[in-house]
């Protein structure tokens, strides 16, 4: 039976939803607003902030003081590079777990997921020392590897769930049709899993873009992504709210836009299998 919805009820729900939505979005909105204020205005009371003059000064200064483009490119390279590397490893791994599972496959999957529960700081020192000894500190390649390893469990898990949805008979048909393993994965499995792979890629790019522990610990300048760019404007003393806000806005804008346009795909991907 359909639930009866009165106009009052709809109004209450709508107001509540907008309120909660705005509350959640407020910090980001405030950062965007502060970015367009002078340093002096940025620390005033909220009402005074809103009524003060708008300016692009902080953006100019940020541009002059640091190389936004370098950090942006680093973020792009790190997130895309780590995603690509993770896919190359995860597609065959998820294939074997989904279609030729062994006795320990389930345990292995759980173990992989459990590594995500480990506090990253616990392995900071050994990782740092390894990076130092291998000369990987502040290199893109080093960070690509680390970001790949961090997100690999999630990528394998997601692909595994998508692959599980693909009927094994279709892959068997491909085998009967003369496809070897490479052709089977390339021509049959991957195209069929494109929606799932796309969601995985999106999520992984976002996770890698936002990763702010290892990128801050293992980079200083040449491989530093946008997280480092933001962090360089936060200082224990001094008043850099406006510049910090401008930098933050510039750092989150690309991923926010990507997320906005791909939200349908993301939601579909993340709930795939759950609502089928």
């Amino acid at each position, binding site marked *: 039976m359909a639930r009866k919805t009165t106009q009052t009820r709809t109004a209450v729900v709508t107001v509540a939803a907008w309120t909660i939505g705005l509350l959640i979005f407020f910090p980001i909105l405030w950062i965007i607003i502060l970015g367009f204020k002078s340093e002096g205005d940025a620390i005033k009371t909220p009402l005074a902030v809103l009524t003060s003059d708008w300016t692009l000064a902080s953006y100019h200064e940020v541009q002059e003081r640091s190389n936004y483009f370098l950090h942006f490119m680093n973020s792009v390279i790190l997130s895309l590079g780590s995603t690509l590397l993770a896919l190359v490893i995860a597609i065959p791994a998820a294939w074997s777990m989904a279609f030729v599972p062994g006795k320990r496959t389930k345990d292995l999957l759980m173990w992989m997921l459990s590594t995500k529960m480990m506090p990253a700081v616990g392995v900071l020192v050994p990782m740092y020392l390894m990076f130092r000894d291998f000369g990987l500190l502040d290199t893109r390649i080093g960070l690509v590897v680390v970001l790949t390893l961090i997100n690999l469990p999630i990528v394998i898990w997601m692909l595994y769930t998508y692959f599980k949805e693909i009927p094994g008979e279709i892959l068997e*048909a491909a*085998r*009967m049709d*003369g496809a070897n393993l490479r052709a089977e994965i390339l021509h049959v499995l991957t*195209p069929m899993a494109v929606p799932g792979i796309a969601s995985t890629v999106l999520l992984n790019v976002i996770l890698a873009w936002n990763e702010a522990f290892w990128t801050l610990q293992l980079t200083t300048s040449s491989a530093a992504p946008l997280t480092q760019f933001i962090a360089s404007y936060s200082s224990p003393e001094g008043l850099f709210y406006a510049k910090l806000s401008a930098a933050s806005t510039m750092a989150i804008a690309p991923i926010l836009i990507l997320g906005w346009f791909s939200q349908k795909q993301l939601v579909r991907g993340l709930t795939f299998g759950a609502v089928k």
Partner: protein
Amino acid sequence: MGQITLSSVTKSFGDVTVIPPLDLRIEDGEFVVFVGPSGCGKSTLLRLIAGLEDTSSGKIAIDGTEATDLPPAKRGLAMVFQSYALYPHMSVRKNIAFPLKMAGLSPEIQAQKVEAAAKVLNLTSYLDRRPGQLSGGQRQRVAIGRAIVREPAAFLFDEPLSNLDASLRVSMRQEISELHQTLKTTMIYVTHDQVEAMTMADKIVVLQAGRIEQVGSPMELYRHPANLFVAGFIGSPKMNFITGAEAAQQGCTTLGVRPEHIDVVEGGPWQGTVGLAEHLGSDTFLKVNVAGVGDLTVRVSGERMLRHGDPVSLAPQPGKLYRFGADGKALA
């Protein structure tokens, strides 16, 4: 060519033996049907032949060449699956061309062969559609098309008609039979439906619990079932089995008589009452309770209007009684 020989083939999953040692020889050009109840191992046996499952022991030879350890692609066999197993992201044309592409044929030859197969299967106007836009019967034809373009040594069908509705099943059954007449290629067909087995097969292999109960032509199995299982499985409605004094009189443990071999006559040896009458139009199936014998199914002409509670007298046709021993085997 498409002669397939299985020698002492077994298959176990862990501790469970699905196929105990089994020998079978399938001649070139034969239409062989594996039939049996679900879980009898018929699909497993087909998958062993296809190479989709590894044998636990024993040998499989195709055209005299050892194939036990060959991967599916190298066996030169084509398979049609119950779920059709079409590639949903490819058009019908690409689906049918896929095995040719895998074989590395030139696009021109691929196109020629696809067109030819589509013509045989009446698929020409659907070539640019996706499988999702086709009906069940059309999908199954695409699956068959994908199989025939390979020109395989043998076709393997794994319950290909189970997902179709009853009338389509009958017409597809005829299409597959006609295809066999045209191509004259070995076909191995798995089904649990004894009607499909009877109508299509040159040779039926009746399986139970992974064992072959009997191999023979449809009429051989119908006329001379080797044991109770085959007697009960082949024929529709199934054979009546009579035990007790009536069987003992005939010198056997179980007496079998098919519903179509019992006549309603005046003064027959079995007196009973009609319990249920199913009028199909052409035929009527009666369930008759006979004192001292039990319930018997009788097939009579549709003209006969007998009803629940009518007394009838029955007589088995001479020479149409089957006698089975205590071990279930047929007695001579």
